[in-house]
C-alpha cells in the first residue's frame, strides 16, 4: 500500500534522525585538536540516507537533524543554529547533486568530501561576515584543511558501513531504495 510505504519511510527517517543525534553525542568523546572543530560524525546517517531515500526524504532528515541538535544542545534560538542549518542544507544539496550526477563514478567518500567542503565554506563565510570580520580570513585555510580530512574520515566510514552492514541492507530492501 502506498501510505504504508510512506509511513515506513517517515519512521525510518525519524530513526535515522535519532542516529544523527547519537553520533553528535559520540563526538564529545573525542578530544578536540582545535576549538570550534567538529568531526562531522552526524553526517554519517545523512550519507547513508542518500542511498536509501529520494531527495525529499533526505532533506527532511537534514531538517530533523539540525532542529534535533538545536533542541538537545539548546542552541535552537541562537546564531549557532542558523550557521549549522545553513551549512547542513548547503552540504545536503551538494551531496544530493553529486550523488545523483556522479552515479557509478562516485562513492560515498567523494560525496562526503564535497558535502563537508560545502558546509565548511558556508559556515566559514558566515562567521567571517557576521562575527569575526574580514581580517579573520587568515584562519580559514586551517579550518578548511581540517574539514577536508574529517570529510574523508567520515566518508570512508560511511562507505564501509554501507558495504558491510546487514541492517543497512535490510532497510534498503524494506523500503525499496531511493
Amino acid at each position, binding site marked *: 500500500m502506498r501510505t*504504508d510505504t510512506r509511513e515506513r519511510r517517515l519512521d525510518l527517517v525519524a530513526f535515522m534522525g535519532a542516529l544523527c543525534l547519537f553520533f553528535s553525542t559520540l563526538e564529545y568523546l573525542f578530544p578536540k585538536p582545535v576549538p570550534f572543530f567538529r568531526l562531522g560524525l552526524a553526517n554519517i546517517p545523512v550519507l547513508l540516507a542518500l542511498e536509501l531515500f529520494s531527495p525529499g526524504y533526505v532533506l527532511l532528515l537534514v531538517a530533523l537533524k539540525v532542529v*534535533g541538535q538545536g533542541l538537545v544542545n*539548546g542552541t535552537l534560538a541562537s546564531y549557532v543554529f542558523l550557521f549549522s542549518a545553513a551549512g547542513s542544507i548547503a552540504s545536503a544539496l551538494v551531496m544530493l547533486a553529486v550523488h545523483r550526477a556522479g552515479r557509478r563514478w562516485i562513492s560515498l567518500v567523494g560525496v562526503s568530501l564535497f558535502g563537508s567542503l560545502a558546509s565548511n565554506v558556508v559556515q566559514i563565510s558566515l562567521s567571517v561576515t557576521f562575527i569575526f570580520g574580514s581580517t579573520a580570513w587568515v584562519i580559514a585555510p586551517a579550518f578548511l584543511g581540517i574539514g577536508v580530512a574529517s570529510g574523508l574520515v567520515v566518508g570512508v566510514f560511511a562507505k564501509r558501513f554501507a558495504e558491510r552492514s546487514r541492517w543497512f541492507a535490510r532497510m534498503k530492501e524494506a523500503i525499496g531504495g531511493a
Partner: protein
Amino acid sequence: MARRRRPRPPNRLALHASARDVFVCGIVSIVAFLFQSSIVVRAAQVLVFAMLATYAGKRIRWGYFVMIVSSITLFNLLTPLGRVMLEVGPVTITSGALEQGVFKGLAIAGLVFISLFAVRPDLKLPGSFGGLVARVFYYFEIVLESRQRIRATALVSSIDDALLEIYPGFDGDAAPAGRAAPAGGAGPAPRLVTTTDAIGAIMLGTVAAANTVLAIVF
C-alpha cells in the same frame, strides 16, 4: 567506548516553568538584549543569562566562551579605530576597536546563553514536523540506551548488531516490529513540568521585564 559521560545536572528551571513559557521568555530576552547599547549593562546581562543557563542544568564551557569573546576582540583590533592606547611593534590597540570587539563578543556569548536556558528538548514544535521531531527524540532515548554496546575495536559490526536489535525492520505493518512509535509528542522526560507555577512565572516575568526596561533606559 568505555568512557561514560558525566550525568547532566538537573534542569531546576524546568521544575517551575513549561517549555513553551521559557522559550517565550527567551525570545523576549533576545530582542531586548540586542537593543542594549551600554557595554556595562550588556556584560551584566551576559552574567545573568549564564546563571540562568546553569540553573537550567546546562554546563557552560567557560573556556570556549573566553575563546570566542577574545578571538572576536582580537580580530576587531586588527582594524584600528579610535584613540591609540598601546603600540607594541606591529600591534596597535585602539580604544574604539577594543570596545567594539568586546561588545560584539558579549553579544554572541549572551545569545548562546539565552538559547541554552530557553530551549529544551520537550519544547513542542507545531505541525506534523513537530510530531516527527518528537519521534526522533523517542528513538534517540532508545539508541542512547544501547550506547555501551559499541566497541571501538569492532566499530562497524558492533553498531550493526545494535541497530539490528533496536530497529529490526518492518513486520508487515508500518511500525517497526515489537514497538509502537509514539503518535505525537509523548515526551520522554518525566521530571519536566508542563505548566508554569508561581515561582516560574515570577522568575520568567522578572527576566523578560528587566531586560526590556534596560533596553529602553540605556
